[in-house]
């Protein structure tokens, strides 16, 4: 078997318009500064794209990029990123997924793929160790994602779109196996290029440069993943749906389009209920010991069990407590290729529009009857579905209701209402791609009461730190689930009493941020790359990537006025007597920490400090 270095520095550049295929070499400086995954994908786009282009035009650039860990034995080493300018938000976006496509891309000898232009006919890209080709996908166009993968399994592992991507639904997803890159409409970008998917069938063996160093680091890291209470037990037994009871009880899970703090039927849609009544078996991404995915029996049908976000947005947010229906809709969304977070938010918004007589429809809170058909209509852009395919922001532009349109920068909120975790609010408001839970996620430290759920103390530091760490982790790439044991399974954290941790996080946030434990991240990545990256350098890569993306978005017109939250979340009390989110106060501190001016633009000195070459 051919040996392939985990960082091979070969990236394929394809122009679908002309049909040309080139293999480029990643510049050593780009690798050192941006690492891989998210960072390298954004740098590749920044160097190539013109500002102001239409995300659904041939001028958009779609990048699929693995990280140094992809295909290795590092914990959660199966992930890759898909990046482009988003048709939902009009700014840059990255969406992550596991499955096996990224691993097979790497095994074929390529770290990533950059896609330009638009194919004349429906096409797919075939990737093997022998090379790449653009193939006719006319017979595959129209198939749902599961159908296509089942029929074309012998070709290898796919990253594909369904009908939603073909019909340019602005929150269309890319699907690989049954894992989904849901957020920000990467599937629509693929569809706009007449690209049904990519298939990779790599045969090489992926190896680290420093084999012994990497082996040692992997053993330590894997042991931490197994020893950690969350990744070793809770996530294995309950999956991400364990969050239902935690956030549902804490008044953070969205209910009725973010109007109520609690859903009285919460236990009916809990992970505990799934475990007791529906669970068949775990499944996971390549090389992952956590296996947070699960298959279940729902009314006699074997289906992928829905994740936390899906249960929240299609369950409590719509006041629906029927797990078999939610599991069915989840499968429909996966097959059609759509993001369940944006879909659930959009349907919830449409329900409230209907309730207020602003857009009459048959969508009502608490009623399951019309959800099946609306999902199909969205994917095929039929009737009301054509409007809902545009997402919450555009729906509110057309029909009104901006005060209860739940999005940030056009991206619908993930399932954490920031009125119960205000740092998460700052995270949503400043995350580069909009209201994602995968950048600056502080909900768990707030719910865990390390930081006060309300108030502002320590929040700006924590959000900035989490955003920077997440960005470098998403460039390495490590799944968010592996990040918890890496950060927490160390003697300092384990042996320090909670009251001391709370004190440091709240009153000495700079010390808390500076002493965050990154040794596992650094050891694993250093072993793969064959040169040492220390704590300070690793953290700086994350900070650099965050600022590069901000710079790219500022070039598209983003400024401080966009760093805000939906009116409902800033103006409406969720729990009687709870203080409002003091976003302005946290924002001032945050901008200062970031080295941005009052208009939210990175200062020249900041860009210089981070070695970001502006062009």
């Amino acid at each position: 078997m051919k040996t392939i270095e985990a960082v091979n520095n070969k990236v394929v550049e394809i122009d679908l318009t002309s049909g040309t295929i080139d293999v480029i070499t990643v510049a050593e400086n780009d690798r050192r500064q941006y690492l891989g995954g998210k960072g390298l994908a954004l740098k590749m786009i920044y160097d190539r794209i013109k500002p102001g282009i239409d995300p659904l035009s041939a001028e958009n650039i779609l990048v699929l990029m693995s990280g140094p860990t992809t295909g290795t034995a590092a914990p959660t080493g199966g992930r890759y990123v898909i990046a482009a300018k988003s048709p939902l938000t009009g700014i840059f976006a990255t969406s992550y997924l596991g499955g096996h496509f990224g691993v097979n891309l790497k095994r074929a000898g390529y770290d990533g793929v950059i896609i330009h232009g638009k194919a004349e006919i429906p096409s797919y890209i075939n990737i093997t160790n022998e090379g790449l080709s653009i193939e006719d996908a006319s017979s595959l166009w129209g198939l749902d994602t599961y159908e296509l993968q089942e029929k074309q399994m012998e070709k290898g592992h796919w990253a594909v779109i369904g009908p939603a991507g073909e019909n340019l639904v602005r929150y269309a997803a890319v699907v690989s196996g049954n894992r989904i890159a849901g957020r920000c409409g990467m599937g629509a970008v693929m569809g706009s290029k007449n690209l049904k998917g990519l298939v990779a069938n790599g045969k090489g063996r992926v190896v680290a440069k420093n084999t012994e160093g990497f082996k040692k680091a992997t053993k330590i890291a894997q042991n931490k993943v197994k020893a950690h209470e969350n990744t070793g037990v809770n996530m294995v037994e309950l999956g991400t749906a364990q969050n239902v009871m935690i956030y549902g009880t804490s008044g953070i899970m969205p209910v009725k389009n973010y109007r109520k703090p609690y859903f009285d039927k919460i236990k009916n849609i809990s992970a505990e209920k799934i475990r007791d009544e529906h669970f068949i078996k775990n499944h996971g991404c390549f090389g992952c010991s956590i296996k947070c995915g699960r298959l279940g029996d729902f009314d006699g049908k074997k289906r992928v069990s829905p994740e936390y976000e899906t249960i929240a947005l299609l369950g409590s947010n719509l006041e629906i407590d029927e797990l078999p229906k939610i599991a069915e809709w989840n499968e429909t969304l996966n097959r059609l290729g759509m993001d369940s977070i944006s879909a659930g938010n959009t349907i919830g918004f449409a329900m409230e529009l209907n309730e207020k007589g602003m857009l009459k429809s048959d969508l009502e809170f608490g009623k399951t009857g019309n959800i099946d058909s609306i999902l199909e209509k969205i994917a095929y852009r039929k009737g009301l579905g054509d409007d809902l395919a545009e997402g919450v922001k555009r729906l509110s532009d057309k029909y009104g209701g901006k005060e209860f349109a739940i999005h940030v920068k056009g991206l619908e909120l993930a399932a954490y209402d920031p009125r119960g975790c205000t740092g998460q609010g700052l995270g949503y408001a400043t995350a580069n791609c909009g209201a994602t839970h995968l950048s600056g996620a502080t909900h768990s430290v707030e719910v865990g009461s390390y930081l006060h759920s309300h108030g502002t103390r320590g929040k700006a530091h924590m959000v900035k730190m989490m955003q920077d760490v997440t960005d470098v982790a998403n460039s390495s790439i490590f799944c968010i689930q592996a990040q918890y044991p890496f950060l927490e399974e160390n003697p300092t954290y384990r042996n320090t009493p909670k009251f001391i941790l709370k004190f440091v996080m709240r009153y000495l946030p700079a010390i808390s941020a500076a002493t965050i434990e990154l040794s596992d991240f650094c050891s694993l990545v250093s072993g793969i790359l064959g040169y040492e990256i220390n704590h300070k350098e690793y953290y700086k890569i994350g900070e650099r990537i965050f600022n590069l993306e901000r710079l790219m978005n500022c070039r598209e017109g983003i400024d401080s006025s966009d760093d805000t939250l939906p009116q409902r979340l800033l103006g409406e009390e969720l729990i009687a007597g709870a203080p409002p989110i003091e976003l302005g106060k946290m924002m001032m501190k945050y901008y200062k920490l970031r080295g941005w001016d009052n208009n939210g633009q990175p200062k020249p000195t900041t860009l210089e400090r981070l070695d970001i070459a502006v062009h």
Partner: protein
Amino acid sequence: MLGKKQQIKVNVELFGGLYVKISNEEYSFESGIELNLADKSTPKDILKALDLPFFKSMIFFVNEERASANARLKNGDKIICLTAASGG
């Protein structure tokens, strides 16, 4: 009644990893479990009584209000015990 220790009766519900680990046959998902405890017991004592581990990342609610692991409980309290949260 000097010398006689007062008892309190509380209702306990467990979720997350604690639900996975509870082995007490009287425990039910629908209604939790009724426990008799010494007066001034805490959520931490509940875990001990049920032979469950304690982690500092655990979250407790007493009568729907957030409470610390060392909060003093009263007769008739309803306690919810949850394990740590993570990304979805």
